[in-house]
């Protein structure tokens, strides 16, 4: 089963690493994976996205035109990707900074105030992407929670390993935010 996904937001919001963690976790589960970034001269503040495919079979194109799952952290990304979510697909959007949410009724949309929770409850906005990851894993069951833990441990450089508990906590908070529809 092929799952086509996109993660989008401002550069620095951790969308690329969110996609990487997911692809890595899926690879560890024996799946085929591809991760394709938008790339360009903007480093910080520009819009960034990555497309991630996870499949039981060999993946054809790493570049997708429509998505089973979209996770968006800013308004331009919501505007860009909402129309491209497949019918009954999942859209997770950052609801503490995007003032106007999605309008489509034929998709499963989840409002996740990841930035607010990360800054207020965890005092570290960098883990906002893990809150979104928690919500994503909970509603899509795309990979196991343990696989996210494995991915975190194996992809984070050793010098950041003291942040593992915080990331896991953020993941758990994200899961508690949503109910599977």
């Amino acid at each position, binding site marked *: 089963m092929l799952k086509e996904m996109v993660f989008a937001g401002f550069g620095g919001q951790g969308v690329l690493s969110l996609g990487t963690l997911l692809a890595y976790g899926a690879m560890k589960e024996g799946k085929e994976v*591809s991760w*394709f970034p938008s790339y360009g001269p903007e480093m910080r503040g520009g819009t960034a996205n990555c497309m991630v495919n996870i499949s039981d079979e060999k993946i054809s*194109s790493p570049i997708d035109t429509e998505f089973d799952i979209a996770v968006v952290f800013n308004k331009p990304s919501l505007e860009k990707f909402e129309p491209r979510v497949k019918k009954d697909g999942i859209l997770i959007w950052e609801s503490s900074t995007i003032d106007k949410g999605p309008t489509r009724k034929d998709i499963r949309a989840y409002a996740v105030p990841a930035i607010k929770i990360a800054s207020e409850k965890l005092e570290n906005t960098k883990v906002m992407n893990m809150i979104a990851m928690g919500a994503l894993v909970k509603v899509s069951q795309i990979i196991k929670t343990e696989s996210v833990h494995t991915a975190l441990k194996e992809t984070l450089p050793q010098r950041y390993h003291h942040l593992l508990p915080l990331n896991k906590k953020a993941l758990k908070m994200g899961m508690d935010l949503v109910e599977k529809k």
Partner: protein
Amino acid sequence: MGELRLMKGNEALGEAAIRAGLQGYFGYPITPQSEVIEYLAQQEPKHNYVLIQAESELAAVNMMYGAGGAGARVLTTTSSPGFSLMQEGISYIASAEIPCLFCNVVRGGPGLGTIQPSQSDYFQSTKGGGHGDYHTIVLAPNSVQEMVDFVYLGFELADKYRTPVTILTDGAIGQMMEKVELPDPIEYKPDKPWATTGKTKDRERNILTSLYIQSEDMEKKNQVLQKKYDQIKKNEVRFDEYKIKDADIIIVSFGLTSRVTRKTVDMGRKKGMKVGLFRPQTLWPFPWEKLEQYAEEDRIKFFISVEMNAGQMVEDVKLAVCGKKPVHFYGRMGGIVPAHDEIYNHIQKLSEKE
């Protein structure tokens, strides 16, 4: 089974080079391939290779010439504008018959162009690129795994034929991550009696040159090269096929585009279109013969070359098909990757006309 990792194409290429016994890397940063030199710079202390960030691609390619000529296993990577600058050196390297591995992570042109992926350097890579009658072997990976595999293959072919080899890939494959199985490292022991390592008493001096001032000598040198190219054409053609056995429409594409057209094939098959994919893995030598065979089969209605350029490989497809069947083209330019469904729609229309 080798080690499994999730890696970017560019980094995987660097890692593969290390494992394949890299001895010298000479390069100049340019988007979208700078990850290769960055990766190799980061890994340098753990290994035994020499890495120089040269002052230009001109200098880099000539360091390749010197180091390759000294018998070392050498690599450079660049992207389109940089590859143009290297063409002078590649011509000299081809003539002096020095094994060197090049990788062009293509971006859209002409000129400074865009940093987005493209296949518009097909002509430059497959038809020689620099001055004079020469070819480089051109390998076209379409996955991160092949970025790794073709480094091993490229080094081997370069040594075997004493010739420059080009890996022609694009920004997307360089930047994307996939699961990749890394082969075990090999211990590289060069056997290059022609290398300029110092004239010992038991041999004549070794001279590496591309200068043959007398026409007769120059022609003779060219004949030697052409004979070698004939051998390469005979032995080294590589391609891959997908759902082609019963196909009546054959899509021809390479590199990233062949990943998209694979999806087009699946889409077409679902809708009852008998479409298959033919993917050259060597762009030079091009699989002319195999395509000619297909052109002679009655079931085939037409060919379509799908590329990220204005229509370059299609000329080789036409050469192979030789008027026996219609050959169409569909392409996007400037760094735009065509979508699988837009390709399907185009083929659908063609199919109605034919």
